[in-house]
Every structure is written in C-alpha cells, then in structure tokens.
C-alpha cells in the first residue's frame, strides 16, 4: 500500500475497550481501579476491495474489536473513520445510514435469525426498513434473485422455510445475502466459517472474496484459522491481549513471522500436509486475562526471547519492509 496522503477507506484509530474489574485486585494500592483491557489501542487501515485477516487466540480481543467496529458495543476510547467520516458521528446522525455502511457476519449462523420467522419474512424486513423496492412483490423478486445468485436453489422453496430447517452453510449464505441488500462498504466477518462443516466453508469464503473484489467492499475477516485467513486475505494482523503485535501481507506474516508470538502461533499450527513437519516453538501457558497488562510488552511473561527491557516499556513497532511491522525489538533478527 502506498503511504501517500490518501485517506484510507476504513481507518481504525486507537480503539480501546476496557471493562472495570471488580474482583480481588492483586498487588494494587487501594483506590486504583482495575481494568480488563479487552482491546487496548488498535489502529489499522483497510482499503476498498481489501480483505484484512485478524488472527489470534480466544480472548485476544478480536471479536470485541469486530463488535466495536460495528458499534454493537461502544468503545472506551477511539473511533473508526469510514471514508474520512467518524462512525461515532454517523451513528448519532442516523443509525440507519451507519448500519447500511457497516455490516457484520456472525459466527453462529444457527442463531443469526429469529427462529419464529420464515426466511422470506427475515429477508423482506431489511428491504422494507430501508424502503428498497417499491412493493412486496418486487422485494420478493429481489430476494429470489439474491438467493439464486448465492447458489441457493430452489429459492422459492427456501423462502418458505424456517431457519432450523436449513443447514449452517445455507444460513450463513443467507446472512451474507441479507447484509448485501444494504450495499455496505465495510463488512466485519467474525469467524464466519468456524461453525460450518469443512466441505461447505469454501462457499462462504468465495462469497466474501467476491464481495470484496467485485463490489469493492472492505472486509475484516476475524478467525483463528491461520491457513484459511492466509488464503482469503491480503493483509493479516495478529492480535495478542488486545493489541496488534504484527501486521503485514498475508504471505509475509505466515511465511516470515517477525514477532515471537506469531512465530509460536504459526509453528504450532497443524498443517494439512503430513510431510510438512516443522519445528514447533513452545511457549508456556495460555493467554492470561488482560487484567492490567503491561507496562512492558504484554507477551513478555510468556516470551522465549524476552529481555529486561521488554518488561519495562511496550516495544515500538519496527518495520521490516513492505509494510510489514512487528512490535518487538527483535523483529529484524532471524531466528
């Protein structure tokens, strides 16, 4: 990506989500408040037609980030600009305008639709709300076309069904189709395939790729599946305890990780190729709760190459070329 003065399409600016912690506080003076920092200062840009993959383990704040960007939760600080316009302002002015700009695909397709309505009713609702199409007949026709273009046959039959009568893959496609009605510029896909059977995942993935390439939407693909994320995205951001620790093009990050956490993550990722036996880097324990992390590098307590300095100050991000950076003083060193 060129770093000219061009405004990026989606620009996340220092977003943070802190929850107050009311449990027993450890080694703390009284009066000081404890915070669980689910997301702690994330800044990132996404261009039109670009898919950004966000990977990390459970509890790293990647889902919370998705919820903040779609304003299902309000961040403690920070904002997200779309085409230079603050979404905070946008949602204040008109909820509908914001919602038609930013859409989300949820992880659990089986719970995305109310169990009491047919697919027809579910699909017609946003069309009516946004006054798309002139009457119900026209809207119904739009639904049928959309379903068929999403590979859902026979559309007429599917419209009459209830969500529980459809498979996860079908529901997830309907979920994307419904979002598409609003013609959003930015889509957050929060683990959209992790609950689906392997053999139908590709359908959803290809739909998302199609969305970004042909409709020019910016997509944030949140996942814990590294291989899949590499497949779908141009850029990958790796999150650990609420912060992005590494960012770069998908191939750079996966093939040439610079942050020790990313290195460990990728070395432990089981490969589909049985002959691809790699040395695994073992790190101790599991990600802790982000309760008052810092002041040093959040990963330092588990890091196999941490030095004293790492515990004192959060390391600055070091660029290693091609827009690839990592928040680690050893980013330039080979392992």
């Amino acid at each position, binding site marked *: 990506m060129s770093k000219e003065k061009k405004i990026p399409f989606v620009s996340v600016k220092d977003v943070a989500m802190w929850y107050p912690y009311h449990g027993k506080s450890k080694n703390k003076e009284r009066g000081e408040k404890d915070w669980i920092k689910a997301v702690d200062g994330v800044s990132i840009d996404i261009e039109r037609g670009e898919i950004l993959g966000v990977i990390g*383990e*459970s509890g790293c704040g990647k889902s919370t980030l998705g919820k903040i960007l779609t304003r299902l939760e309000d961040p403690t600080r920070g904002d997200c600009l779309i085409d230079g316009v603050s979404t905070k302002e946008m949602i204040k002015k008109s909820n509908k305008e914001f919602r038609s700009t930013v859409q989300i695909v949820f992880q659990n397709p089986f719970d995305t639709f109310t169990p009491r309505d047919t697919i027809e009713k579910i699909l017609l609702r946003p069309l009516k709300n946004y006054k798309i199409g002139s009457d119900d007949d026209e809207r119904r026709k739009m639904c049928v076309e959309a379903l068929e273009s999403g590979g859902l046959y026979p559309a007429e039959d599917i419209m009459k069904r209830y969500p529980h009568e459809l*498979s996860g*893959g*079908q529901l997830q496609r309907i979920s994307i189709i419904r979002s598409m009605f609003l013609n959003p510029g930015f889509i957050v896909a929060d683990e959209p395939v992790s609950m689906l*059977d*392997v*053999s*139908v*995942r*590709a*359908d959803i*993935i*290809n739909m998302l790729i199609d969305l970004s390439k042909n409709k020019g939407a910016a997509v944030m693909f949140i996942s*814990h599946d*590294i*291989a*899949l994320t*590499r*497949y779908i995205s141009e850029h990958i951001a790796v999150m650990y305890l609420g912060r992005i620790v590494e960012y770069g093009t998908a191939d750079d990050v*996966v*093939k040439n990780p610079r942050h020790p956490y990313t290195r*460990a*993550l*990728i*070395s*432990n*990722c*089981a*490969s*589909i*190729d*049985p*002959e*691809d036996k790699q040395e*695994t880097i*073992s*790190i101790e*324990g*599991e*990600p802790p709760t982000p309760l008052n992390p810092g002041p040093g590098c959040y990963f330092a307590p588990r890091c196999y190459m941490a030095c004293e300095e790492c515990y004192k100050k959060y390391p600055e991000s070091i660029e290693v070329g091609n827009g690839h950076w990592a928040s680690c003083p050893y980013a330039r060193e080979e392992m």
Partner: protein
Amino acid sequence: MEKLLTLENVNVSYVNKEKKVYAVRNVSFSIEKGDSLGIVGESGSGKSTLAMALLRLHNENLTEITGKALFSGKNLLEITQEEMNELRWQDISVVFQKAMNALSPVHRIGEQVEDIYHIHVPQASKKEIEERMIKLLKLVNLPERVYRLYPHEMSGGMLQRVAIAVSLLHDPKLVIFDEATTALDVVTQGQILEEVVQMEKEMDMTRIMITHDMSVVAASCNKVAVLYAGELMEVGYVKDIFKNPMHPYTQGLLNSFPSLKGECEVLHAIPGFLPDLSKPSEGCIFAPRCPHADDRCRREKPVQQTMKDTRQVACWLHQGGEENE
C-alpha cells in the same frame, strides 16, 4: 502386525418412536498395535456415534447395534456392561472434548485420580498413585503441583492435559480421543498434539483420534479413516491418502482445506448436503454430491477394495483394484 481392534460390519442406528436413523452403516476396518488412527468426518458422519458405541457409552434403549468389534478376543459390542467396566480405563480409555466437565470441581486433582485408580487397583497406596500420576503429568508437560490443584485453578489446556494423563493411568492398550483438542487454541492444540506423539514413542500405545479437522490428523496420526454419512469412504496410511486421495469425497474434503504455507489453490466446496440418514441408501451414499457419479453409483453400493498401498476405498472408480484416478 498384531491387530488390536477389528471392526466388522458395524451398524449403529438410533431408534425412536417415529423413525430410525442409520448413523453408522456397515463400517469395517482394523487397527494394528501401535497405530494412531484418525477418524475424520463432518457433522453427521457418525464418527462420534461409532466411538460411543465402541465404549458402550451410548443410550442402550435408543440404539440398535449390529456387527462385531473384536478387541483382544472380545466383541466390545456384545459383552455385558460389567465386562466393559473392567475394560474401561484398564484397557481402553477415552479423552473427551471438554475435560473440565469430567472433573469434579470440589475435589483436588489428586483425590480424583486416587478414586479412579482404586476402582481397578483397590490395594494401591496413595504414594504409589501419586508417583505414577506425577510421572504422567511430566509426560504432558505439567508441573507436579497440579496434583494438588482444583480444576478451576487451571486453564482449559492444562485440564485437557490432565485428562490425557488420567486416561493413561493404567497403561491402556487403546486410547480414544474424542475431539479432545477441538476446543483448544492453536498454540495449545499444537503443543498437546506434539506431546501426544512424543509420548507414544515412549509408551507404546494405540490411539484413535476422532476429529473433524484434517490437519489434526496430518499432524498426529499415521492412519486415517474417512467417514461420510455413517459410511466408510477410505481408510489407509496418512502419507498415502493425503498425497493421493482416491475417493472423491476425500478429494473434496482435502480441497476444502487451504494449505498453510504452500501454494494458494482455489478452494472448492462440495456441492449439495448430507442425505437424510433415516432412509436406507441405495447405491453409493456420496453419489448425489459426487462429481464422478454415474448410474451405477446411484444403483449399487460400492464394495470396499484393497489397493496396492493397503488402503481400502469404497468407490466404483477404483473397482478394478489398482487403477489410477
């Protein structure tokens, strides 16, 4: 090689008032001593049903089982529950997906381990058990102090490791991992899989790994059995099948996984969906979704054929015995 477990025409169906669901149909394969077999399949493939039936943990009133599963001369599907109780832990043990649910929250790990140990060896002393368990904990990279912890003081990955250690208490001949690493994070899963593979080298155990994730099988097993809609599609060595899948379903499944570092090939979904399992199928069960299906596939059920590399494939494309694609 000595055969440890041989399945012959195993059928498992769930019966209730209204209908009968054929969850596992005519599955036959065998496991040799020292093997690690991954049973892969998507939801509805019957992989968990099969495991539950082998362990006799299914609901007997709602299930109909036919066929044989010979384990050191005994048919696991026919012996009484008492005999099965004898075998469990001693000879066959299991690790479930959510270990935390299997452990009592109000007792220390050590106390629970003692209880389990005493079921089969009532005369064992506390010290003996502790020593044994601590040795096992080391195998799964856990510190000794875990023995004195409560389950809630540990993370999911630690608990899963404890469950694995507990399953090895009596040196079982066969360990079944039922989606044992599915709920874990990438790093933890990777590490546990490596520990398990390491352990096997030292302990001479046989393992069945039930999972939906092909990469778990690639990383930790030497053999793989692919199930679809309750039927066995292909079984053989991982190195053969992953490199050169013969059954169209296996091919489709492998095409659905992107490679981690290799070339980015275009992903393809398998069109269509799982057939209605309450109807007995005519012909190949995969035929409706298969790109190569012809009339014969839809009419007659393919027979399992043994190939040159000892793998078995149930597909008409490979009926000649040894042909390519």
